[in-house]
């Protein structure tokens, strides 16, 4: 009986992997044939993917999807967003329900190597941080030995927090909450000295305080959380397209191309700009795309800086500084290989 179950499980598993590889090299054709990119997003995370008052999706992850749609289909609006919970996200990608996953997913070794997935780059470098009330008068997390910490249960933040305090030989007591709005209410009510979460989340939670300026995010970052779009393994053509759509936005920022000046930039003497915008080189056709792929991205979605400021940066209620996400030439680590 046990053998039979094992055999059945084996057949089922083989079926899963067979489906996985059979989908190779077909995503681009499927998207073009459908005339629509199917993109997995979160069910509501401020700044990353969240429905606005009109029910339209906004956020940096959403704009990443729109950039790929602009590159492939020439129209950033031809995206179907599929809201996915954290548990569903990888299965939805593996089963082919979505073409790409852009859902604040941390790039880790296990995910990259064992799930049959490829991370196509990083659109936001996040990391776990701490938020305290300014009235506490601390400047660094190292001063917080013995503090009580508000955390949301069941997340890796709990483990990172334990590691960090043990490493620094400090004591803490945790106050665990179930959802993010309970966590911020606990913090607001003074049930803990500080709140820990991913930095992007700290900024969005801070907006929920009656007086957001009374709280501050400490400079310490205790974990690396590179977030980026994910595609299925085995379809390298599609992997390249998603990867280079992201790089195109970063390169556009580096060369000073914005959605406002992209038309004038087409006549630019700078060969880098010409190659990217398809006036001097044929980068697009090498990927199976139109010559104007990068032009469409910048024209319709913007360069990386525009996307960042609009969704999570100073132009948004989150008001997150560029920090690590600044260009490599501006002290950050956002770096794209040359487009040539």
């Amino acid at each position: 009986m046990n053998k039979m179950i094992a055999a059945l499980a084996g057949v089922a598993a083989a079926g899963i992997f067979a489906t996985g590889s059979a989908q190779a090299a077909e995503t681009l054709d499927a998207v073009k044939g459908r005339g629509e990119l199917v993109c997995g997003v979160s069910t509501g995370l401020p700044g990353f993917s969240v429905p606005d008052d009109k029910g339209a999706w906004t956020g940096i992850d959403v704009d990443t999807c729109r950039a790929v749609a602009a590159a492939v289909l020439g129209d950033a609006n031809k995206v179907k967003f599929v809201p996915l919970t954290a548990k569903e996200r990888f299965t939805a990608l593996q089963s082919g329900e979505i073409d790409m996953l852009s859902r604040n997913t941390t790039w880790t070794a296990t995910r990259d190597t064992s799930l049959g997935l490829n991370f196509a780059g990083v659109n936001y470098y996040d990391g776990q941080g701490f938020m305290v009330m300014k009235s506490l008068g601390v400047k660094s997390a190292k001063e917080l030995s013995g503090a009580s910490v508000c955390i949301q249960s069941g997340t890796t933040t709990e483990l990172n927090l334990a590691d960090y305090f043990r490493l620094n030989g400090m004591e803490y007591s945790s106050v665990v909450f179930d959802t993010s709005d309970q966590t911020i209410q606990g913090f607001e009510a003074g049930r803990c000295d500080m709140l820990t979460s991913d930095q992007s989340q700290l900024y969005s939670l801070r907006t929920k305080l009656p007086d957001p300026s009374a709280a501050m995010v400490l400079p310490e970052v205790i974990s690396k959380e590179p977030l980026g779009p994910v595609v299925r393994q085995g379809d390298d053509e599609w992997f390249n397209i998603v990867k280079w759509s992201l790089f195109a936005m970063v390169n556009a920022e580096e060369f000073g191309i914005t959605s406002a000046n992209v038309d004038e930039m087409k006549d630019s003497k700078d060969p880098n700009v010409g190659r990217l915008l398809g006036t001097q080189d044929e980068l697009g056709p090498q990927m199976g795309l139109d010559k104007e792929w990068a032009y469409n991205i910048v024209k319709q979605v913007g360069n990386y800086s525009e996307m960042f400021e609009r969704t999570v940066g100073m132009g948004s209620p989150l008001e997150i500084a560029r920090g690590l996400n600044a260009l490599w030439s501006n002290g950050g680590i956002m770096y794209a290989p040359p487009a040539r």
Partner: protein
Amino acid sequence: MAVFELKEALPPPARSAGATGWIRANLLSSPLNIALTLLGAYLILTFLPPLLDWAIFSADFTGETQDACVSGGACWTFITNRLPFFTYGFYPEPERWRVNIGFLLLAAVMIPQFIEKIPGKQWIGLFGLTGLPILVAILLSGGIFGLESVPTDKWGGLMLTLVLAFVGIVGALPIGVVLALGRRSQMPIVRIVCTTFIELWRGVPLISVLFMASVMLPLFLPEGVSFDKLLRALIGITMFQSAYMAEVIRGGLQAIPRGQYEAASALGLGYWRSMGLIILPQALKLVIPGIVNTFISLFKDTTLVLIIGLFDILQTVNSSIVDPSWNNVATEGYVFAAFSFWVFCFSMSRYSQALERKLHTGHKR
């Protein structure tokens, strides 16, 4: 000559009549009652004024953004601002009239059921169970008759909750009746199949049913075959609830005395006619509370679809309260969601009570 004059009867003593009498009889009849009344009054006076103050007197109702919420009470502006999203989800704005017609049709079918004297209301009800779902399905999804196609991933909010609940209710009752009859059948194969079905579905939590439908099923389907996520959830909910329904109805069937079955046979009625004309009408009437209980729990269980990323009314609230352009509006959002659910569940409960009164034929004591 003394004439007998009829004097008017004296009014009852003031202490036992009118408001005073009522208060004395109901609130102050014993020391325990007095204590409970005082406690109740204390609780009401402690909690009600701040609650009313928060919800009504210092609440903000108008405006467009967070800036309109200045009074310190509830920020209902958030709800009014997001109401279209809570109602229609991602349904495209120019097409929302179709959803409105769907709501109207549902109301047109349901409201007559509450009113005693409307001719042909059983036919309206029958239409509600057969024609209406098909009509509304065509109306909402479109694609024919010149209606623009709206894929189900755009459905959301209250509309999605009602679709899930309505399809679940309309599907679960007949399937439940068939399963209940099957489980009591003399034919072994039918009995085994029905029993297995019921025990299998009843033995797993709804969450895992939804999760299997949403996450596992696509992995086993052949490549390129994907069928609608909403449809998968609908099938899951209907199957799950029909198993519960079957057991509720089986309870009713078992309460019918053996004599009724024998009388039906003696009249020469076959199986289906004796069930349809004699047994089921009595059995279903007996278990109305149980059936409505299942319906109400089904309605509330529809919120579980949020774990598979469908935007029912609770999920639209969930994803709206995180919007950083609003302050902490979680309370307002959840109060709104709770109120919406209460309205529907309470109406269902009232309807079942009215139905019981109407069908009351001496069973009730």
